[in-house]
């Protein structure tokens, strides 16, 4: 079983993964200039999904469920035009998921 301390120092990305994500972000910034505004959150979520996919194989046991949750929650084709209220609800649910992970991983609920 990996200790919490070891978990914190796990390296989850190799250089080529980092480069891939970096290039995605730079080129997405450029393509977004010409694309519909509603694509912007979708591109960010795609980046989150790609990051989760890259990190999952090397991630700690503690982090892995969060990465799976992110990948499952991220629909790479979802835009808000079809269902704006539902879209915001799903994003809020994902935000809640990552925040709850932070609370647990940083022991915020027990620290003074």
């Amino acid at each position, binding site marked *: 079983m990996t200790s919490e301390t070891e978990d914190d120092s796990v390296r989850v990305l190799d250089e080529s993964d980092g480069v891939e994500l970096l*290039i*995605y972000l*730079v*080129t997405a910034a450029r393509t977004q200039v010409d694309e519909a505004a509603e694509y912007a959150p979708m591109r960010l979520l*795609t980046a989150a999904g790609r990051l989760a996919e890259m990190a999952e194989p090397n991630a700690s046991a503690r982090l892995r469920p969060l990465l799976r949750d992110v990948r499952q929650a991220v629909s790479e*084709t979802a835009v808000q035009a*079809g269902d704006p209220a539902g879209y915001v609800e799903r994003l809020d649910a994902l935000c809640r998921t990552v925040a709850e992970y932070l609370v647990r991983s940083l022991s915020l609920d027990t620290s003074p």
Partner: protein
Amino acid sequence: MNDAVLHAIRTRRVARALTDAPVGHDQLRAVLDSARYAPHAGNRRLHRYVVVTRPSLLRAVRMVSPGMLQHPMAAIVVCVDWAKVHGYGFSPVNPGPYIDVGTAAATLLLAAHSIGLAAGPVTSFSRTALATILNLPAEVEPELIICLGHAATGQPPGMRRQGQPGWDDLIQWERG
């Protein structure tokens, strides 16, 4: 009545998840060859088709293509040769070359479908980065990528929109 063409049109889908099963060279040639028969204004051959099959090159293409959700086993990049376009005296705002990219894309997608391949178009990519990666001449600009492969079982949902307008709302018969 032979409705094979209509059937192909109605059953084609954009594939956003592909397996790692390879695309055969003959399949690739068959898809490429279909673009010869796409309706192009004046049959002027203003377009170029760049075929990518090398895994490292495909990975690089995907990196600069935020809209590429799938991992294609092959890709056809439809480009416009702007030197040829200008040579014909087209106005810079003439949409013809772009329209012909669309007719080529539709034909390529249907051809892929007809031989059992899955395909999906991608237009969200950095033109500059892709041209650099593919070492294209300055006057040749990439405009659309056709991703090719075999459809994975689980596909991301399509982009669905609710409510109006309905299909018939988009059609005008005769004068408005």
